[in-house]
């Protein structure tokens, strides 16, 4: 599991530097406060060194990918907002969030070095997660038609980003305890084997509560994640295809129900099926996105040359279109490959982890990361109906960035314990010596 990543880290930071340099030189953009760029590079290097020091057996390659993704995101956010009145400070804000995220990563690593403790609090975490999601109904305020935001002092945040991680810890801890009981069942309803309510009850309850609340809050992107990730974890834990079939049926019924219940779902679907019927209203965003991507071609227009600023919400949900526009097919493919490497390492960590709970935790976190990328990239390229969620690490968004840093911290912790165990098996004395 042990992975060093000094060269990838250096290349990732070079990409960011070159991106900013291009923007400043060629576009005659006003120089951003350079000190922020230095802060960013310093943060990521310090983070890498810290992880190498505290978690010597962990998979530091994850951090190199995170550095590339946040760096490309920063460059794009800066490029898209530096001359737009009202949002010209977005890039520096994002740099600040990356700093907060790194602090969150370090805190998680230091506080939960023995992350198994987290599983002892799984019911508490589940309650906190559902509470967080529910809190926006009472205390939240609306942005773009969905009431998902919470204001705490000067900071606005989206609680569902953190609720996700808490829920995955709950599912991992709970399923690891009961997976045999859930897998070994003899009762059937309509030919489908169903587990005893006693064991399946808590899973179903938490699942239904979080989903119901999110659908009620019209957070469709998150509902999709909250639906699919526990289902995948259930399948991985029990190895029963019946759960997947049941989930697919439930998904179809649920999608149909939401389609008829909510206007904005109908708008999204019709914009997906035929954006040309409404080019100035519902289809405007997706059409602008497609124009931008097409304009990029193979190698892109070059940084600062595209017209992707015409897409509404380009710095959050549609940042991938802007990248495809200015870095082209090649650049956006490289970005997707970086995501793929992250997911591959995540699954590998899950395979090598020692116990069921760790395996399920790593798998759940990774599959959430992968699905989120799939949903938003699919959405902006018109492969699937658009649901507004962020592209992990790349999009502008404080809660999303911090949440994903915490996710990375947990993956690093699992990989550390797997790597340490592997090293012990090879050479027990070395590791004992290190510990002493």
């Amino acid at each position, binding site marked *: 599991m042990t992975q060093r990543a000094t060269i990838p880290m250096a290349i990732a930071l070079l*990409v960011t530097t*070159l991106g900013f340099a291009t923007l400043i030189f*060629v576009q005659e953009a006003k120089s951003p406060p350079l000190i922020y760029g230095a802060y960013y590079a310093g943060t990521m290097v310090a983070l890498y060194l810290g992880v190498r020091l505290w978690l010597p057996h962990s998979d530091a390659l994850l951090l*190199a990918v995170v550095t590339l993704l946040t760096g490309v995101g920063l460059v794009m956010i800066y490029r898209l907002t530096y001359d737009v009145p009202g949002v010209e400070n977005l890039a520096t804000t994002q740099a600040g969030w990356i700093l907060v995220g790194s602090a969150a990563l370090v805190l998680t690593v230091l506080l939960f070095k023995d992350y198994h403790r987290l599983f002892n609090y799984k019911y508490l975490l589940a309650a906190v997660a559902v509470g967080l999601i529910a809190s926006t109904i009472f205390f939240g305020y609306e942005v773009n038609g969905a009431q998902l935001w919470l204001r705490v002092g000067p900071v606005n945040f989206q609680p569902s980003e953190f609720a996700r991680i808490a829920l995955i810890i709950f599912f991992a801890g709970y399923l690891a305890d009961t997976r*045999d009981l859930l897998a070994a069942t003899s009762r059937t309803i309509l030919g489908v084997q169903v587990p005893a309510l006693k064991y399946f009850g808590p899973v179903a309850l938490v699942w239904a509560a979080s989903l119901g609340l999110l659908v009620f809050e019209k957070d469709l992107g998150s509902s999709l994640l909250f639906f699919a990730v526990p289902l995948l974890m259930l399948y991985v834990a029990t190895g029963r295809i019946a759960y997947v079939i049941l989930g697919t049926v439930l998904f179809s019924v649920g999608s149909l129900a939401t389609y008829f219940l909510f206007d904005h779902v109908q708008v999204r679907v019709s914009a997906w099926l035929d954006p040309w019927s409404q080019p100035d209203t519902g289809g405007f965003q997706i059409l602008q996105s497609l124009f931008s991507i097409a304009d990029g071609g193979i190698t892109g227009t070059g940084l600062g040359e595209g017209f992707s600023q015409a897409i509404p919400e380009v710095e959050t949900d549609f940042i991938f279109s802007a990248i495809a526009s200015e870095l082209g097919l090649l650049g956006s493919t490289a970005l997707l*490959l970086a995501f793929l490497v992250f997911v591959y390492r995540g699954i*590998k960590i899950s395979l090598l982890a020692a116990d069921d709970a760790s395996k399920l935790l790593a798998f759940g976190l990774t599959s959430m990361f992968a699905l989120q990328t799939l949903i938003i990239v699919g959405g902006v390229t018109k492969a699937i109906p658009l649901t507004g969620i962020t592209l992990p690490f790349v999009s502008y968004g404080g809660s999303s960035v911090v949440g994903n840093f915490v996710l990375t911290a947990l993956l690093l912790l699992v990989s550390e314990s797997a790597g340490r165990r592997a090293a012990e098996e*090879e050479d027990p004395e070395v590791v004992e010596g290190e510990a002493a």
Partner: protein
Amino acid sequence: MLDLQVPLLAAKALLLLLLFAFIYVVVRRGIGDLRAVPDDEVFVPGVENKTPRRRAQEKPAYGSNGRGKSSVLVVEDSEVLAPETRFPVSGGVMVLGRSSGSDIVLKNDDYASGEHARLTRHGGLMYVEDAESTNGTYVNGRKAVGATPLRSGDRVKVGSTTFRYSE
């Protein structure tokens, strides 16, 4: 205009180049373990040097691939087999069970099914999988659900027999 276009183009090309350099380096380090050479393939030294995960370190990567390694199942405790009997585990699929067609035959073991468990090597790891036996297969005392990776020292229980797996 030309003197502005040239550096712009160069910067653009360099950026794409750097992006792919990143992907290349990361993939070489991160996905090298996918390229484990199957056991029955001829070992080519030149190839090996291109895909190590921790070449710089003195220790070989943990069980990263099965090359040159011989794994064995050693009988620890059994009603039907002599203790300390060694069964070398080769590549491919090996079947453990009571039927005489099995690779490791547990003859007259009332607790074993005809085809009880399968051993498969995949991606450098040995996996044991229960073949829908009546009594189940246990790894370190826990019932194996789906394919379970084995590590050196793990105890595998099939029927009345407990094997120790070592690499």
